[in-house]
Each structure stands twice: as C-alpha cells, then as structure tokens.
C-alpha cells in the first residue's frame, strides 16, 4: 500500500480530510471568508460604536455626533464613513445600524440555531439509540410539533413569550443587559421550533450506527449507554449536526427579519428586520438606501452561508469519501 509512504505528513484525521475536500471548492472558501468578515463586523461593531460616542451610537443622528450633515435623510455619500450608506429619514447613520444588525443576526443565528441543534441532536440520539418508549415519545413529540404550521407556531410562541411570565423572569437575570428581551425571545422561539428536521435525521442515522460491530464491542466492554451514545455514536452522525447548523443559522436570521417586521421580534435596537420594516414608508418617499443596505447585508450573508452549507455537505458526508 502506498498509503504508508508520506509518513512525514500530518496524520489523516477525518477533520483534516474534510477540510482538504472543502478547500477544493474555491467559491465555498470565498464564501467562508465572507462569513468570517461578517463575524468580525458583528464582534467589532459594538466596539466601533462605543469608541465613537459611547453606547447606542446608532440611536443618534449624525448631527448629534458632531458631523455636518443635513437634518433628515441623506443619500449615500463618501464625505464620512458613517454616511457611506446615507442616513435614515430620522438622520441616523445607516451603516451603524447595519453593523448593529449584524450583531443581532449573529446572536440570533448562533444561539437560535445552537439551541435547536442541541435539542435536535440530543433527542435524536436518545430516540435512535435507546429505542423503545424513548423513541415513541420523541417521535410523538416531533410529529406533534411538526403538525403546527411553522410560521404560526413561531408567531404564537413569540406572542406568548412576550405576554407571559418568561419575559418577567428574564428581565431580572444578569444577561438581560447584554442581550435584550426581544432578542432573547427570538432565540428561544427559533430554538424551540427548528429542531425537528435534525432530530429526524439523527434518529434515523443512529438507528443504523447502533447495529454496527464496534458498538457491540463497546457494549461487550461494559460501557454505559451515555458513554457509548456521546463518545462512540455521536462522532459518526456529527456531520449531520454541522450541516444542519449552517442551514438553521440562515433560517434563524431570516425568521428574525420576518418576526421583527411583524412586530413580535427584536425591539428597542436596530436589526435588519427593523430596518426593512422602517423602509416600508421610507421607500415611498424615495429613500431607498436603508432598504438596500439591509437587504444587501442579509442577501450576501445568506448566500455565503447557503454556499458554505452545500460545500460542507459534500466535504463531510462520509459516504462521499473517494
């Protein structure tokens, strides 16, 4: 076998193999770079804001920030970087709002999809591996959740979290200062509604993996269920989790936009959904740039993540190894 020849190279771990396959897809690498750029904006957006004028710079007009611009809407101009995308009808910097919206999008995407993935993965693993009544319960749970139309479930849940005791509980927690209630609601709604697809996929895959010999070997060695599940089964289905995370990340961000637009999402801070909602009346006055800025920001990120997701599927699926 020639396999043994390049001993000086790093060992061929599955992760390295996947990365090698991923790298071959040029456009996917570019899209990954775009994603990282967005992430950096999400991280530094707030720092830039605070450096400019303290917290909530996005809520101030350019005049209040000491810049010489006309009151009200200004079209995009190159006079100052904060006016690069122009100002809203209230005279606030569109660019700063896009930056803040990027942060909101990443919080929603990461935590919303993260919560969904953790729920879906755990339930799927348990259903597939433990079988019997656990399987029955999980199957019942997801068929029930899946029966409620998605947007309706999201709207209902968003509506309820707002009304109910959960928001009162949240406001007293220390993290309420960092992630606003509206944002927390969205994360919760997306996490609790988007786990079904992954759960189904993981369950089906685990059912197959459970029958393999190495699992029987692990059983024979006397390992406990939890250890076999998380240490031996999970790595074999983890590619599903990663791919699904990228898909749910996009859905989460798009859902934020729609929920916020419908008035049950992020409030008291700018998000892309908020910007698009404001743009509805601005557009009719010919102020197109806030919509364009938010729309393009959302479009490029969505496209990049969609592309990376497709490439991840090709790179990670163990059946596609050559």
């Amino acid at each position, binding site marked *: 076998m020639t396999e043994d020849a390049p001993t000086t190279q790093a060992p061929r771990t599955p992760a390295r193999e996947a990365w090698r396959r991923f790298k071959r897809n040029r456009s996917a690498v570019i899209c990954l770079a775009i994603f990282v750029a967005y992430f950096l904006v999400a991280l530094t957006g707030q720092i830039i804001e605070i450096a400019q004028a303290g917290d909530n710079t996005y809520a101030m007009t350019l005049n209040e920030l000491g810049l010489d611009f006309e009151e009200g809407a200004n079209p995009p101009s190159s006079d100052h970087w904060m006016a690069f995308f122009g100002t809203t009808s209230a005279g606030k910097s569109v660019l700063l709002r896009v930056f803040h919206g990027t942060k909101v999008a990443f919080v929603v995407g990461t935590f919303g999809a993260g919560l969904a993935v953790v729920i879906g993965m755990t339930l799927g693993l348990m259903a597939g591996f433990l079988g019997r009544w656990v399987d029955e319960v999980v199957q*019942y749970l997801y*068929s*029930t*959740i899946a*029966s*409620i*139309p998605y*947007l*309706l*479930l999201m*709207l*209902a*849940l968003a*509506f*309820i*979290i707002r*009304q*109910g*005791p*959960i928001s009162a509980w949240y406001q007293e927690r220390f993290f309420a200062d960092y992630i606003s209630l509206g944002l927390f609601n969205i994360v919760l709604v997306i996490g609790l509604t988007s786990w079904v697809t992954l759960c189904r996929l993981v369950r089906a895959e685990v059912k197959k993996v459970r029958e393999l010999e190495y699992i029987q070997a692990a059983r024979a060695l006397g390992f406990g269920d939890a250890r076999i599940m998380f240490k031996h089964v999970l790595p074999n289905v983890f590619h599903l989790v990663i791919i699904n995370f990228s898909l749910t990340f996009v859905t989460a961000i*798009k859902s934020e*936009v*729609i929920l916020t*637009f*419908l*008035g*049950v999402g992020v409030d008291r801070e700018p998000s892309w959904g908020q910007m*698009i909602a404001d*743009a*509805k009346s601005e*557009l*009719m006055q010919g102020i*197109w740039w806030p*919509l364009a800025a938010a*729309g393009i920001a*959302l*479009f490029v990120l*969505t*496209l990049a993540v*969609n*592309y990376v997701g497709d490439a991840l599927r090709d790179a990670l699926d163990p059946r596609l190894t050559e």
Partner: protein
Amino acid sequence: MISFLLRRIAYAVPVLLGVAFITLLLFDVASGDPVSIKLGKSPDPVEVEALRIELGLDKPLLGRYIDFLRQIVTLDFGTSWADDTPVREIFKRGVLPTLSLSLPAFLLGGLVSVSVSLLVAFYRGTALDKSITAMAIAGISVSSLIYILVGQWLLADQWKLFPIWGYEYGPSAVYFLALPIFIWVLLSVGTDVRYYRTVALEEIGKDYVRTARSKGLEERHILFTHVLKNCSVPIITRMTIAVPFLITGSFLLEIFFGIPGLGSTLLTAITNSDLPVVKAFTILGAVLYVLFNILADVFYALLDPRIRLG
C-alpha cells in the same frame, strides 16, 4: 386500502390531541392570565370573576382541555375579543380572499417550477443549467420582504402597472391580485426548482432511462413520458403537503397588498392579543396539516404501484 387509511387516521388522533394540548398550554397557561390580557392591568375584581367563569378558567386544566376539544369538534371557537364576532364568521369572511390569492399563485408556481426543472434537467451540466441553478440559489437568499417591498415600490408605485393596495370581491379582484400572485410565484420558484431538479436528476440516473436510451428513444420522449411519470410521485406529494398553507395564506402578501384574508386577520388578532382567534387558527392549521399529510400518503400509495399498503 381502507385498513391503511384507518390505521393512518388512528395514528393521527394522538398527534392532534397533543397539538390541542400544546395549544391550550401555550395560550391559557404560558401566556399568563388570559383575563388580564382581555381586561387590562387593573380590572374590577367582580368583572374578573365573571369573566373567569365565562371563559371556563375556573375549571381545572383537564376540564378546560375537554372544553377545547369540544370546540374543535363542533368548530365553534366562541367569539373574538376584539369585536365579539363569532370566530367562525371571521374565518368565513377571510377564506375567499385568501384562496383567490393563494390558489392561482400555487398552481402557476407549480407549473413554472416543474417545467423549468425539467428543462434544466434536460440541459443538465450545460451553461443554462448552471446559470438557472445559480439564479435559484441567489433567489432564495433574498428575503421575501425585499421581493414584496421592491415589487410593490417599483411595479406599482413607480411604473404604475398595478394598484398598490386594496381588494374587491368579484371578478375585478384580478386587477388587485395580479401583482401579489406574481410575487408569490417568484418567491416559490427558487426553492421548488432546486428540489424538483434533484428529483428529476435522480430519476435520470436510473436503469430504466438507460434501457430506454439503448432502445434508441429520443431524449425528449424519455424525459417527458418516462421520467416525468416517475417524478410525479414526489411532485404530487410535495404539492399536497403544501395545500394547508394555501388556507392559512400568506401573511406578508396579504398585509402588504391589503387583501382581507386569513393571514392578515391572524396578524391583527396577534397584535390585539385576540386569544380565541389565534387559538382557533393554530389548531385549524394543525388539523389541516395532519389531514393533508394523510392525503399525501394515500396519493403516494395510489400512484406508486411499488408501495404496498399491507
């Protein structure tokens, strides 16, 4: 067939019971106190007590659950809190405008997607295939709100091709519906083309296609008779499952274009905290979803002789 149907329905019953229970929990328990939602922050205690009894909130949870199930079976969901119209009336009012938008849009969208994906599958691997697939990915990456906002602004406000807002009952509705239908088709085509293209390509890779080719059949003939017939199973399944969403309607299109359908009704109910309406909507949506899923299974079994209903 009948035993299959019965089994399928028997399986759906516990799911529907679960949905009803979740809906009840969501609206009557997790939302806090429905009475305070209806009466405001500092209501009169006598009034509160009267309302609690009227809404059946003095009963234990099980009692309320049974009440709710009775409502579902009799389709009598009480009256709206906003203006005391029976919820059933609200549905009757909204269903026609909603269907007049969603049904043509759905049929047109399906026709366009299936033809485009067959075309793309026919020219697979060529520049046409690649550019249409790329367009589909780009298309689904744009937020649906952008399509609506830009479409309304550009086509209705700037170019004055369509009315911006409004609805009329009767044949003149076409005038108001043309633009929202167009946007709906645009919104659905991207996802559908991607899906149907995969379906078609999977079929094209199968043995019977190779056999047909080796018999010397024309590629076009193979595609439109052999492949399309085999693709019809997933196409019809997908379309059947989508039907309940035609009735719940498109919230966004209805709101933007002022169509007085079920979608905009629901949104008004949500902003007004009109619990009976939102509750009825959720449960009816779920019932329809479950029913049409059963129907999809039936079609699937009828169309595909390989599937046995044992």
